[in-house]
């Protein structure tokens, strides 16, 4: 029934329609803003809403086709199967190149819709231009979707069953990873559109900084959560016991995050002090450019990665032309208009602004290092014909020394006043964090192995205590403790959010320090054998056959004893998927939030009656992702700040005028 209405043909039509609407959304409001025609400018919101609606219909058509097993649709036939669980039929829609491109377009359209809905307070011309830029970008990607990666292509003759999905991707964590990650990537299109609009208008001021910041915070929070989810997935699905591999795909998501974090902070300076304006505009363009090039270069097959989408150089050429238009166009506009933008205010180097500049310099240096390491292999291969790889040692040796001063400055930055700071009050407020960090340094030097882990542990504590000191100072913790909850409630949510995000970064760093102390063993064991890893005694109870919905599994049962107490029973398994003739390992993890017990079942040797087991003990592992979650929550908390929702004074005035007019008319009528 539903599939008769929401057919693939309707989907393709809706996609084409959304492309037309997006083109109008691009052209008409820009024309209106240039000619000062209010009617044309206001049409922007309507087009944005219509384009979003058309894409929702298109996406619904693809979801219906996947959910009802319509294998006449080539995309569904290649990526789904009758036996696949319903959850993965739906989430599998964005598990392949075509579907994820459609999801990308949908989120971009949703960004346009969000600016139309929440940006009522913006001046007409700015809002029209922002929505127009979003529309132009969306039109380009919808064309890409239509011409080179049409998810609605029919297959003839339709196969009786689909080819199924890569079993590695059949995982609840990964199912929701792409939408969250894409919301982050695409969300940076809004600051980008604001930057291009500002260049078109030739004006960047404090109000612009205030408008652009919530959008940046939202995109950044999604991207933080998305990256953390991806890293967590590779931790518990790939079963290597690692969480970050400096793989090109991972780097492609890290680059916009680093750049976006810098943008988040420099936009504060624009808002509060009207400085760093041109730099912030450039960062906004760079962040979205990195989001775009990252995701799409990975798919063109230029970057060699473990995550592979089907490669197609023809598709790559289309993407490259699109990137040249979006990135090249905006950078050309920047080269033309930025030099004549009014320069911002001046400030002393030792001040809040100064610390935010340091933050930007360090974050951008890390981004530059990661970019170099990621792009070096393909460019070397192109220029010198040499296949080389840049591995973890490069990134660890170059990015880590830059992260140390970044974390060191992170605790101090929020405690500094604007314009000009003095050293003595800062040192007084940093007494407690400093003492605690020094204590951790001493304890770590005694109990931890390696120099970096000790330093990371101390820096993690330093950053968390710095965030607490920031809030304690703001709330006046020495004053009457009875009114403390009330004072805490009155604190601006943006300040609380920032402190929470900083503390989250500290928690993640502590997790990294803990993970560096991980221990593991690979053993060949018989049922009944006991193995000692990191102080725990593991006993292999047995291995059994278990049948799943679309796989057969071999499941091992392991008891873990600490002393004489049974602390956990783990069931690592190996699943064989007959449809793809593929075997995946299912990691078993037991966590108490302080450390993870992590077990992987390896090959079996029936002739000797043994199995190979890989057993890990990962201290503080969950903190890595917990910290990222805190960062995202901090972003969300700061978004709920009343000051952001109320907006700038300009719209308030215009709205009160609108409100007053009918009243005056009513008065005149009397």
């Amino acid at each position, binding site marked *: 029934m539903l599939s008769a209405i929401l057919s693939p043909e309707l989907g393709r039509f809706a996609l084409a329609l959304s492309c037309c609407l997006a083109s109008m959304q691009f052209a008409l409001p820009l024309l209106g803003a240039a000619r000062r025609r209010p009617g044309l400018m206001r049409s922007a919101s309507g087009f944005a809403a219509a384009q979003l609606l058309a894409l929702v219909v298109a996406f619904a058509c693809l979801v219906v086709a996947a959910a009802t097993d319509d294998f006449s649709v080539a995309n569904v036939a290649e990526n789904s199967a009758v036996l696949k669980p319903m959850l993965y039929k739906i989430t599998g829609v964005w598990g392949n190149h075509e579907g994820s491109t459609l999801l990308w377009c949908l989120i971009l359209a949703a960004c346009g819709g969000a600016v139309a809905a929440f940006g009522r307070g913006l001046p007409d011309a700015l809002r029209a231009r922002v929505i127009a830029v979003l529309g132009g970008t969306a039109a380009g990607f919808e064309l890409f979707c239509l011409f080179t990666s049409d998810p609605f292509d029919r297959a003839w003759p339709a196969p009786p069953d689909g080819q199924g999905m890569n079993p590695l991707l059949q995982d609840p964590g990964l199912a929701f990873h792409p939408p969250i990650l894409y919301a982050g990537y695409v969300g940076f299109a809004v600051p980008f559109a604001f930057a291009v609009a500002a260049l078109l208008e030739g004006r960047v001021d404090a109000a612009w900084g205030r408008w652009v910041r919530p959008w940046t915070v939202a995109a950044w929070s999604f991207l933080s959560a998305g990256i953390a989810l991806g890293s967590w997935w590779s931790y518990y699905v790939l079963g290597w*016991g690692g969480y970050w*591999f400096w793989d090109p795909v991972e780097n492609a998501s890290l680059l916009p995050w680093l750049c976006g974090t810098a943008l988040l902070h420099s936009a504060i300076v624009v808002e509060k002090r009207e400085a760093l304006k041109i730099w912030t505009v450039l960062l906004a363009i760079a962040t979205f450019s990195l989001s775009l090039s990252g995701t799409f270069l990975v798919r063109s097959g230029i970057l060699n990665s473990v995550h592979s989408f089907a490669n197609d150089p023809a598709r*790559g050429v289309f993407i490259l032309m699109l990137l040249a238009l979006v990135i090249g166009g905006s950078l050309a506009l920047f080269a033309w208009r930025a030099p004549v933008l009014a*320069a911002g205010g001046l400030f002393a180097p030792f001040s809040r602004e100064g610390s935010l500049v340091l933050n930007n310099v360090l974050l951008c240096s890390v981004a530059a290092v990661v970019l170099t390491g990621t792009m070096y292999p393909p460019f070397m291969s192109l220029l010198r014909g040499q296949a080389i790889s840049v591995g973890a040692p490069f990134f660890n040796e170059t990015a880590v020394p830059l992260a140390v001063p970044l974390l060191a400055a992170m605790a101090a930055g929020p405690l500094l006043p604007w314009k000009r700071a003095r050293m003595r009050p800062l040192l007084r407020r940093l007494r407690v964090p400093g003492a605690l960090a020094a204590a951790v340094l001493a304890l770590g030097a005694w109990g931890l192995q390696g120099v970096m882990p000790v330093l990371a542990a101390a820096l993690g504590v330093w950053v968390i205590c710095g965030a607490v000191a920031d809030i304690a100072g703001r709330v006046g913790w020495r004053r009457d403790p009875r009114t403390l909850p009330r004072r805490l409630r009155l604190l601006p949510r943006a300040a609380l959010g920032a402190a929470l995000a900083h503390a989250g970064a500290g928690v993640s760093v502590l997790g990294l320090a803990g993970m560096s102390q991980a221990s*593991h063993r690979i053993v060949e064991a018989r049922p009944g054998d006991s193995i000692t890893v990191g102080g725990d005694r593991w006993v292999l109870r047995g291995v059994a056959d278990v049948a799943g919905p679309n796989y057969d599994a071999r499941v091992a049962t392991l008891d873990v004893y600490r002393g004489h107490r049974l602390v956990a029973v783990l069931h690592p398994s190996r699943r064989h998927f007959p449809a793809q003739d593929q075997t995946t390992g299912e990691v078993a993890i037991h966590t108490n939030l302080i450390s993870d017990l992590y077990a992987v079942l390896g090959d079996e040797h029936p002739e000797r009656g043994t199995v190979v087991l890989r057993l890990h003990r990962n201290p503080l592992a969950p903190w890595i992702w917990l910290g990222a979650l805190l960062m995202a929550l901090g972003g969300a908390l700061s978004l709920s700040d009343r000051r952001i929702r109320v907006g700038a004074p300009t719209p308030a005035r215009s709205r009160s005028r609108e409100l007053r007019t009918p009243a005056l008319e009513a008065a005149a009528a009397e």
Partner: protein
Amino acid sequence: MSTSLGRRRLLALSPLLVAGGAGIGFWRMLHGMSGGSFDPHDVDAPVLNKPVPSFDLPAQAPGRGFSAAELSGLRAPVLVNFFASWCVPCVVEMPALLALPSMLGRPLPVWGIAYKDRTEDASGFLQRSGNPYTRIAADCDGRTAIDWGVSGVPESFLIRPGGIVAWHTAGPLSSGMVTEELGPALRRIGA
């Protein structure tokens, strides 16, 4: 303002120039990929079917180092495996390396080269993960790996008697790869 407008124009132009250069590079890569002249996934070793490049590496505890001359002087085939303690896929392939004789049904010595690794890290890694190596050398600065055309760790090279590279794989060895690729390669060289 101390910076003149001309300098500001030049500064504002630089991001476009950088992006343009990168764009041209990517375009050349895509062009080469469709023409077949450029393939980032082609990590076939340049030393395949050639004599091993000359080197002489110091020992890595708990093993004894070796040189190209020693490899060439062997009467039986040997598998040379580049690994590192910081490399996660190396942990993954360790069970396959340890089970090599039982999977192949014949002995095949494995000589390891620790790639860009601190010696104490590498020996700690072998203590924890098991040690499949007959001899172990340390390539601390990675120079030897460059001569071998190693594109990343782990990588394994099958050396036939006389020191010729007969087979190569980039990435972790799996039990399937051992029986389906390494075994036939061993039979091909008739050893």
